[in-house]
Structures are given as C-alpha cells and as structure tokens.
C-alpha cells in the first residue's frame, strides 16, 4: 500500500524581502488547507540555523515525508534545504522548492494583495508537485582506469604523457608511422626560434620511453561504444584488431592547412607556395636563391573562404620573414639553385588528393618563361621582403616585439583591403604582385621571386567521421566543439570525452600544450576517483508502449538511448543528462523523465490554473 502523503510547508519571510510585500501568515494559513499538508509554518529566515532546525524538527515530530520551502530560488538554496532533509532522513528528491521571492515579492512590490494571491498559487503548485514526487538514488558507475588518446601530434603526446604519469595506462593512437603531427613539417618555431625537430625530440622520447603508454602507430579507431567509465573501443593497430575497455577518451586529431586552390596563382606558378610548403623548403634546405619575396596574409580566412582568423599565420609569416632577413644562409638550398621551386608537398599531412591536384597543376602549368633562371642575388644581403596584410595580429608582448624587429629589418608591411586584394601574375617571366598602395593612393607593382600564401588551419576531412564515431559535435567551422567556450573549454558535452589542440581550432604549440595538460587533468579526475555518480534525473522508457521507431535515439544529444535486444528503446543511465528532449519527441508518449515527470509537470500546470475554471 502506498504510504500517506505528509507534507510540511515552510514559508519564509526572508526578513522583509518577502514578508514586506507578501502576507506570509495568510500564505501559511492557506497552505494548511491544501491536500496532504500536515504542517505549515512561517520562518523569519528559513536558511538561518533556527529555520533549518525547524525543518529538521518538524520532519521528525510530524513524520513528514515531503518538504516544501517557499522562499528564494532553487538555483542558490536548493542544496542547503535538500541537505537538511537528508540529515533528517528524508530523501532529497522529496524536497520541493517554491520561489516566492525572485518570482513574486521582488517583482510585485507594488501589487499589494495580488502578490499574496500569487504566492498562494505558487505554493498550491508546489503541493501538487510534492504529492507525486518519488525518492531517487544516484547510481555509482565504476570507471575503467585506462585512457584512449586519439592523435599523436604535440597535443596528443602531451595529454598521453600526462595521463600516463598519473599512473594510468593510455592507448596513444596515431594514424601515421611516426608521432609528432604537423610540427614535423616545420623548420624553426616561434617563440625563441628553436629548431622544430629539436623541440619535438624530447616530447617523442617521453612517449616512447613511457611504459604506461601503449604506442599504436599506423593505427585508427574503428569503433567506440559505451559511456563514461566504460567505453568499448576497437582499434586497428597497423592492421591488427585490438579491443579493450577505457574509462575516458581524449581527442587530439589536429588540423590541416587550407589548400588555396585558385587563389593568387597558387595553381599556376610553382613559386607560389603556402606557408607550410615554405617551411618545408627551409627545413630541407631546398629553398632556391631569391632576391625578393612576398607573403600574402589571410588567404582563404576571415570571410574569404573560411570565416575565422587562423590566429597563428601572422606570427608564422613574421617568423619566416625574420628567418630570411637574419638567417638566410641557413635556410638556403646548398646546391645554389635558381629561383624555381621544386615543390615538395606537405609531408604527411597532405591527403592524397592534394598531391594529385598538385600533379595536375604541374601538367597545365603556365610555362611562359616560368622556368627562366633568375639572376642569382647576393645571398643574405638586401633581400626585399614584403608582407601584404589586412592587419597584423601579433598578439601578446613577444610577438609584438618580433613584429617590431621585422620592421627594423626593413620587412615591409603593406596593407590591402579585402575588397581590392593584390593580383598575382607573371611579366617577362617574373612573378609580379600588383597592388593598391593605400597610403600613397597609387597602384604599384612588386617583382618577386617567390610568393608565400598564409592560409588558415582547417578541420581535416576526417573530422565528420570521428564526430559520428564518438558522437561529439562539430562547430560551424568544422572544428570540434567544446561543451562551453569559457567554462568547460576542453570538455565535450558528453561526459568522459575531452578535446585539445588544433582539433578544436587554430592554436599554436604553447596553446596546444596548455589545452593538452588541461584535458589530461580533466580526464584523470574520473580515473583517479574510480567511479562516477550518474544523474538521478534520467529518461525512462516504457517498454510496453515503445514501438522501437528510434526517433528518440536520433534526438538525444548525448547518445544516451539505444535499442535493446527486444528492439525497443533503452536508456543508458550513465550517459543520460535528463534534458527531456526525447520525451517530448517520442510519438508514442513512451518516455518520461524522472523527477520532472509528465504527471508532475501537468499537476503543477493544473494547480496553477485551478482558479481559472470555476
């Protein structure tokens, strides 16, 4: 038999905050007339110790099994009152909050008796809800103390090392034959100008020597299923299938460089290269002799093809301009070649199709004099360098100093407007940048041996596939989207999956390392604790009503529903966040939400309207 409902109502004066505008004694009086209410009282301050004691005492004395506090807002005070209920042996889900301050006395200060009437309505709604409440337990779910990190660039390596150093085994899955990611393409690095290979080496060594890291090269993630603490993963490790269970996943799959097809002569002229291609030329010491060079910024970014600013390119262009101005001998090809670039192609990042495009381009290359040898300039001295830009974003102190240094070295910064960008063509076998000089108000030409296009980092073509596999979202620009840009910058909304590095959007190495360490320490929390507490507010499927249409599975933002063996929907309690989206969508009305059930919400609505139909 169901136990009797015994409700206690505590109406707060909140000093004069409520009591000054709402007739509290009359609300208390009214509460006593409502069904199931055994006890009602007013408190000067319910949240003060004597107020809390009055709740504790009344629960014991009057055997209350529901408690209602009519006072301020649950957003700040619910945990306090729920705690008191629990102290007195009452499950905290049997507590109801009624807001008569923020939603009543404070916004109806001049309404007199109407505010009191409204407070009564609100208490009546609370009583209707309280009658239907049920106790709830929060389930504990064990966490498999292992992690999976996807992507072996800087971010993935740092995250994996950090988790491994907490003492947990980590699978580090990298699709290429080596760890290192995009940095392997680079020559030297801002800030500090350190050689990229040198910077990378100790980080790779830390990975290879770490016994807790299970190194999976030439590997891919083939399947992921489950939820926080219990992800079943299937890996393809160099052709061999490996299956295991991990507790958390960190995504660090990086970004690609945008290929500026059709822009600024990239398809037509060999000597027009991207920033990355330029770095590779320098790194391999295959840069031809040049006497003049132009960088063009924001190619394909900031509203051009992609909407965003890629953050790093201004600083990377300045870095490379300084390399030419200060360190030309060191990046110059040893074989004293002329000014035609034998393009090398982006190391391991260039997908096949880029290589293919490049081959095609070579076929139809405009040869009018393109092969003509230029006069060999005096190395290092007097190389003309210009950076065509919309504006230079050298954020932060050190980058600003680099920018100033570049100016001192006579690097020219020439502004262009997106409405009238420079044009690139050849004249007498030489590349020309034809541009509008806004200060001089003149159309001008610059003869150059080489043009470097600063194109943005873009989300790789594989991102949508990974997004589907892990059921994590991509933002408008195609990068992975965190749960909250400021408050949860390395979490996904799905518990137990984290993201760091350029997979999330353009970032430099320093920022990637921050993010990777942040993601690793977030991921280590459930691993170290060993369990997670599941939400008590979850969807509940009525298997008898469900037709197995699958609509709910599609709408759930957390992948918290699946079909069970009987072909009907089933809630994965550990993954469900209790939003209720599924319930409102189910065409059969087969899904309810615990603690915010259809009947509870309808009872509230009905109580609200009780006076409406007389």
């Amino acid at each position: 038999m169901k136990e009797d409902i015994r409700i206690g109502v505590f109406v707060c004066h909140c000093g004069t905050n409520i009591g000054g505008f709402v007739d509290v004694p009359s609300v208390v009086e009214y509460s006593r007339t409502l069904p199931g209410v055994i006890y009602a009282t007013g408190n000067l301050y319910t949240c003060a110790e004597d107020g809390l004691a009055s709740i504790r005492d009344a629960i014991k004395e009057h055997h209350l099994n529901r408690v209602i506090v009519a006072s301020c807002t649950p957003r700040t005070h619910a945990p306090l009152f729920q705690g008191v209920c629990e102290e007195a042996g009452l499950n905290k889900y049997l507590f109801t909050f009624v807001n008569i301050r923020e939603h009543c006395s404070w916004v109806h200060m001049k309404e007199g008796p109407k505010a009191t009437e409204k407070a009564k309505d609100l208490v009546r709604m609370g009583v209707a809800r309280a009658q239907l409440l049920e106790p709830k337990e929060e389930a504990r779910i064990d966490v498999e103390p292992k992690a999976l990190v996807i992507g072996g660039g800087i971010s993935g390596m740092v995250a994996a090392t950090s988790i491994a150093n907490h003492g947990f085994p980590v699978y580090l899955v990298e699709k290429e034959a080596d760890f290192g990611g995009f940095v392997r393409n680079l020559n030297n690095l801002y800030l500090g100008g350190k050689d990229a290979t040198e910077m990378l080496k100790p980080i790779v060594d830390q990975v290879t020597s770490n016994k807790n890291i299970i190194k999976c090269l030439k590997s891919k993630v083939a399947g992921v299923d489950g939820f926080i603490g219990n992800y079943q993963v299937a890996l393809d490790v160099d052709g061999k299938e490996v299956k295991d269970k991990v507790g958390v996943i960190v995504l660090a799959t990086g970004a690609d460089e945008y290929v500026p097809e059709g822009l600024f002569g990239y398809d037509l002229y060999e000597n027009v290269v991207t920033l990355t291609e330029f770095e590779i030329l320098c790194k391999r010491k295959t840069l031809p002799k040049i006497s003049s060079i132009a960088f063009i910024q924001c190619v394909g970014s900031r509203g051009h093809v992609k909407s965003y600013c890629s953050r790093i390119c201004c600083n990377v262009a300045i870095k490379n301009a300084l390399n030419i101005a200060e360190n030309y001998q060191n990046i110059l090809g040893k074989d004293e070649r002329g000014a035609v670039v034998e393009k090398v192609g982006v190391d391991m990042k260039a997908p096949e199709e880029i290589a293919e495009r490049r081959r095609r381009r070579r076929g139809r290359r405009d040869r009018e004099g393109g092969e003509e040898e230029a006069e060999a300039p005096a190395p290092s001295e007097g190389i003309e360098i210009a950076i065509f830009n919309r504006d230079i974003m050298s954020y932060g102190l050190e980058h600003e100093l680099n920018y100033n240094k570049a100016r001192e070295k006579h690097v020219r910064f020439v502004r262009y407007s997106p409405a009238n960008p420079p044009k690139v063509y050849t004249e007498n076998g030489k590349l020309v940048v034809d541009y509008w000089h806004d200060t001089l108000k003149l159309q001008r030409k610059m003869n150059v041996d080489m043009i470097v296009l600063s194109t943005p980092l873009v989300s790789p073509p594989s991102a949508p596939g990974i997004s589907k596999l892990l059921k994590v979202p991509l933002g408008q620009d195609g990068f992975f989207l965190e749960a909250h840009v400021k408050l949860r910058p390395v979490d996904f909304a799905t518990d137990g999956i984290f993201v760091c590095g350029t997979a999330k959007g353009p970032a430099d190495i320093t920022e990637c390392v921050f993010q990777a360490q942040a993601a690793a320490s977030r991921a280590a929390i459930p691993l170290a604790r060993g369990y997670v507490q599941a939400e008590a507010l979850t969807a509940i499927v009525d298997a008898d009503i469900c037709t197995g249409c699958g609509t709910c599975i599609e709408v759930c933002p957390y992948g918290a529903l699946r079909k069970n063996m009987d072909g009907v929907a089933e809630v994965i309690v550990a993954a469900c966040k209790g939003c209720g989206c599924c319930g409102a969508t189910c065409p059969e009305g087969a899904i309810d939400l615990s603690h915010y059930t259809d009947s509870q919400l309808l009872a509230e609505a009905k109580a609200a309207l009780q006076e409406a139909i007389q």
Partner: protein
Amino acid sequence: MMATNAEKLVDESTASEEWDPKIIVFCCNWCSYAGADLAGVSRLQMPTDFLVIRTMCSARVDPEFVLRAFAKGADGVLVAGCHPADCHYIGGNYRTRRRIAILRVLLEQYGFDPDRLRLEWISASEGEKFQKTIREFTERIKEIGPNPLKED
C-alpha cells in the same frame, strides 16, 4: 492581430474590466529561470498574472503540456529557453523552436489565436528581457481576451 471567429465571440461577451489572465511560463533551468531570478534580484516590476514552471530544458516542454494547459483554461503560455547555440543540452532549444512553430499553426486551426503561445529566448543575464517579455505578453493576452474554453 487576426482574432479568429471563436475569439471574437468571446471578446464581445466578456468585456469585463477586472479580468486577470492566467499565464503559464515554462522556463528552462539554465538560462530563462535564471533570467527570471535576475529580474527579481534587480527588482524589475511586472504584472502578477504569470506562474513559472521550471523544466530542465525548453525541449522538455511536450506539446501536450501546452495543449493541456489551454484545455485547462490558460489564457497564455510562454515557453522561455536559452538563446540559439546556448542550450545547456547542446541543441534542445532548436527542437523547441520547431515544435512551437508547429503548435502555433495547430492552435490557429483550432480557432485559437496563435499569439496565445509565445517562445522567447531569455538568457541568465537578461532580467530586463524577462520583464519586457512578461509585460508585453500580458498586454497581448489582455487584448486577445480570456481563453474561450473557460466559458464552456
């Protein structure tokens, strides 16, 4: 303001001065409920005719709740949720938006003024928007008049 026939009949019959509408406001916990709280903290005054029901997300508001509320005599229903892209549960509010649009069409077909149902994005920092919305909506509902079902 295209009052339907059913509405007009009621309009003419109940022209009482002292009529206080009943308005149900579904607020999602994360943005709009907090926005309503902020209106309170800021002491922004507004008419008393609305009663807030808290749901976790605006997407929890089953179309059935809205229809039942009207059937029980609500004069207006306001659904308030987080701004697009701000929903605590990723994209719940996009579903809400679609549902409310369809519901409004449905209401009209049943002879209800669709303006009785309103959707508004109110963030946790928009106390003033909450106040403005409540004021305008109450005003509009008073113009439309009582829920015709109340007379049955």
